[in-house]
């Protein structure tokens, strides 16, 4: 694709490019081989960017009871003792229809495949199971979506350093929206309090302050997952439990993640959080409007991160942090829509990104008034 379709400056390195929205070679002539003459909303490239490495049919992976015995046995042995937990629940409590159904759901959930490779029907299947399971367990209903990326959408974010006053309303809104563990006080967003006159000195900054803001002689800057367009965290995951969706969101399948934390080591922006223990959210505070890739309840030992509130953004709303910010420092929108505010900011402000030299192409820009 030519320069006219490129929305931002890219590092001039001959990197491998797995998606067509940015070409790492920096040339516009097509010499690097990864240029595509088609414009961005190209269904071909979409398919490539999501299942490119593997084209295995998701159905194969779902442990369906109707599956033939041999495959079933293969999966059984593979999960070794571990599946035993699920097995024992399904064997020991065969009393009552509800327990039976619960056991059935647990069983199918334990052996389901990777969400990334599922067909839409399978996605719906697992979401239905999870909703039903929640209802069986707590008696309450939740609403979980499996909505895929919208066509012609690429999400981007901009942060106005001049406006941010360090109120942390975004942090609180994020925790509530995304059902993060209250116990360990997990937060996706960090607000760095910087000293005036020291430039962007993160080393001197405090990201854990407890005092009245705005503090004299300080300015504030927020960081979170930047949804890199060339995300190193995705490359390193041994099981493809984390990937870049078509609308640019980098997401995690909490049920597929094995908890190796390699992605965490690979992220240059401190964008990922790990569930070191079982996350706990008081029932009354749970946000019942969920997305499979977003704020549904996590379990212990899996990775999670900011998803630009996929449950909201794919429904056409702003992420919770944007909505909560009292100063208007946060701007979110569709990079492919020429009339969006985010495009206006990118075109009219002097924007910059953090650690551009790493070639990760964050879709998160900073600017000042």
């Amino acid at each position, binding site marked *: 694709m030519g320069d006219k379709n490129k929305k931002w400056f890219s590092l001039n390195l001959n990197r491998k490019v797995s998606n067509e929205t940015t070409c790492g070679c920096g040339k516009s002539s097509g010499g690097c081989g990864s240029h595509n003459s088609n414009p961005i909303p190209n269904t071909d490239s979409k398919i490539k960017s999501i299942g490119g490495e593997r084209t295995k049919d998701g159905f194969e992976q779902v442990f369906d009871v109707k599956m033939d015995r041999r495959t079933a046995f293969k999966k059984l042995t593979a999960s070794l003792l571990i599946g035993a*937990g699920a097995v024992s629940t399904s064997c020991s409590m065969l009393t009552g229809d509800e327990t039976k159904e619960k056991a059935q759901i647990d069983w199918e959930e334990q052996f389901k495949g990777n969400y990334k490779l599922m067909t839409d029907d399978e996605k719906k299947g697992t979401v239905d199971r999870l909703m039903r399971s929640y209802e069986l367990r707590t008696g309450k209903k939740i609403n979980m979506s499996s909505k895929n990326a919208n066509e012609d959408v690429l999400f981007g974010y901009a942060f106005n350093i001049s406006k941010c006053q360090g109120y942390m309303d975004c942090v609180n809104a994020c925790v509530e929206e995304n059902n993060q563990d209250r116990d360990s006080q997990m937060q996706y967003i960090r607000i760095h309090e910087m000293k005036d006159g020291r430039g962007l000195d993160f080393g001197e900054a405090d990201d854990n302050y407890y005092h009245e803001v705005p503090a004299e002689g300080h300015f504030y800057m927020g960081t979170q997952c930047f949804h890199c367009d060339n995300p190193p965290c995705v490359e390193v995951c041994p099981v493809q439990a984390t990937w870049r969706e078509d609308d640019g969101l980098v997401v995690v399948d909490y049920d597929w993640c094995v908890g190796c934390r390699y992605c*965490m080591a690979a992220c240059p922006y401190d964008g990922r959080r790990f569930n070191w223990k079982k996350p706990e959210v008081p029932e009354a505070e749970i946000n019942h409007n969920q997305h499979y890739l977003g704020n549904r309840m996590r379990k212990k*030992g899996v990775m999670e991160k900011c998803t630009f509130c996929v449950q909201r953004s794919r429904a056409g709303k702003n992420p919770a942090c944007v909505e909560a910010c009292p100063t208007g420092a946060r701007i979110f929108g569709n990079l492919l829509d020429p009339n969006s505010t985010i495009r206006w900011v990118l075109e009219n402000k002097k924007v910059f990104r953090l650690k551009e030299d790493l070639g990760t192409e964050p879709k998160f820009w900073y600017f000042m008034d």
Partner: protein
Amino acid sequence: MGRLKVFKSLVKDSLDVITHGSLRYHIWMASLTLIMLIGMYCYSIQLEEGLSVTGMTDRVSWGLYISNFTFLVGVAAAAVMLVMPTYVLKDIDFKQAVLIGEGLAVAALIMCLAFVVADMGGPSVLWHMIPGIGVFNFPNSMLTWDVIVLNGYLFLNITIPFYILFRHYQGKEAKSKVYVPGAILSVFWAVGIHLVTAFLYQGLQARPFWNNALLGPRFLASAFAAGPALIILVLAIIRNFSAFNIQDKTIKKIALVVTVAAQINLIMLVSELFKEFYAPTHHSESAYYLFFGLHGKTALLPWIWTAIPLNVLATVLLTFHKLRNNFKILYLSCFMLFIAIWIEKGFGLIVPGFIPGPYGKIAEYTPTGIEIGVTLGIWALGAFVFTILAKTAINIELGKIKFKK
């Protein structure tokens, strides 16, 4: 069918050998078992509570487990230093040592895999990583490469000695046509496992402390020092406690390997230190933290300042022929070298990679009791496996157990 019968009798005989021995041997095995049980208990707590019982946090997300894993890959790779001369160059002296070396490699690899599993947040879904059943992100993720090379190496190191011992057990010579190709393959493979493990860290642009072209070669050099050093110590013990005849010549040759590797390792260390401290950049902060501490945070200082003097002293001692040929001094320097490299390639490599964090935050890491318990348990497991393997192998080689037709 005949083979199966031989195998059955081999298993029976080796079980016999393993369960009989001197009082000292029984005490040794009993204490290892005890430590393993404690480790298993600690691990069960970790399974129940999650990794929050360890000292790891979002800021320092890998710790003692991955440190030990990294170090042990090196130990496993070092078996090759003995394999090469024995099988390929037909250097007779090494023949005795090589079975021990390969046994050590097997034990080290088992420990590696145990450490990786212990580090996982979700061991119950580890099947996601099995190619064919799960989704294997090959070739993008270096971790998948590591899974392949480690398991392949484990396979090689089990089959080659097994073939040789199996033949000897029946009173036949092992056919070199069969095992030499395998041995040559394992030579390359050993370099591969260690290089791939280094690439695991080296490939992360997010961590400047690791993202450094010298990491891989330095891994190799330190591995070829620490691994054979351990083998020398083990041979010394075996010589003491069994009738297995290991000649002085063999030990001296291995000592030479250790010496050269230790010297190269030291040169690379100097080069690394020069780069970090002559013209320090923002990226040298991790090295500063490791060697001098940053902003009053000094948790790693005692470790690294134990490792460096031990490393230098051992290398100097080994360099002088007179001193090296004195076995007491040799054993001492091997021991020092082993400890020094364990610190340097474990703790001293993994933890500073995370400190300071991506935005300069300095959060220190101290392992918890449970973590240490699991770690000791896994080391005991390794020692246990090795003892069993070595005891069987030695008895076959001595002709004490033989297939009776």
